[in-house]
């Protein structure tokens, strides 16, 4: 079974630039999550989708971060403009439904310089 796919694997940008990350969840998974993991910390939930609807974006910095899952499958997370403190690994995860085991992708390592 294919896992959660994320791209790119690594990204280096200058502050104030924009960046986008892509996630393809496991086929058939209704729930999709984006997490931010700063070095030395546990993952922090940014946004959770149920199909193509947002169910929790309380920790998403909405002045600069946006995410969409238009057709209820793939998702993109965008940062515009990026700040130095956005340097982190961005993890995408999916689960069959809410409350089911979440499977994580390898993440995108973002470095803002």
């Amino acid at each position: 079974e294919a896992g959660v796919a994320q791209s790119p694997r690594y990204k280096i940008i200058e502050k104030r630039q924009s960046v986008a990350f892509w996630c393809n969840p496991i086929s058939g998974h209704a729930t999709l999550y984006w997490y931010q993991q700063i070095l030395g910390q546990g993952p922090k939930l940014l946004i959770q989708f149920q199909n193509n609807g947002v169910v929790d974006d309380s920790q998403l910095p909405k002045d600069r971060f946006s995410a969409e899952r238009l057709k209820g499958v793939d998702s993109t997370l965008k940062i515009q403009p990026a700040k130095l403190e956005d340097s982190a690994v961005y993890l995408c995860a999916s689960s069959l439904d809410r409350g089911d085991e979440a499977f994580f992708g390898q993440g995108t390592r973002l470095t803002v310089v």
Partner: protein
Amino acid sequence: GESVGLHLPTLSVQEGDNSIINCAYSNSASDYFIWYKQESGKGPQFIIDIRSNMDKRQGQRVTVLLNKTVKHLSLQIAATQPGDSAVYFCAETISGGYQKVTFGTGTKLQVIP
């Protein structure tokens, strides 16, 4: 690859010994708990879970203990192997609703051959 465990508390264990990793959770309303293993450069991987109506659950070489009175979880790994070297996170959530999962700060396990 990058290390997620750069500034985390570290537990060093001799190969073949048992490991005990501890975690304090924050929300007394949490009723579902998960342990994740995260190897360098990879996303977190589910190890074992436990619901609040239990105080112990066993898997293959792993046991999770839950003490709701003091809001404490532990993960015991029997006969620790080099492949167990990773960062371990506990996560808590409230079942029902949108089940937001909150990760702890993590512990880095180093297995000494």
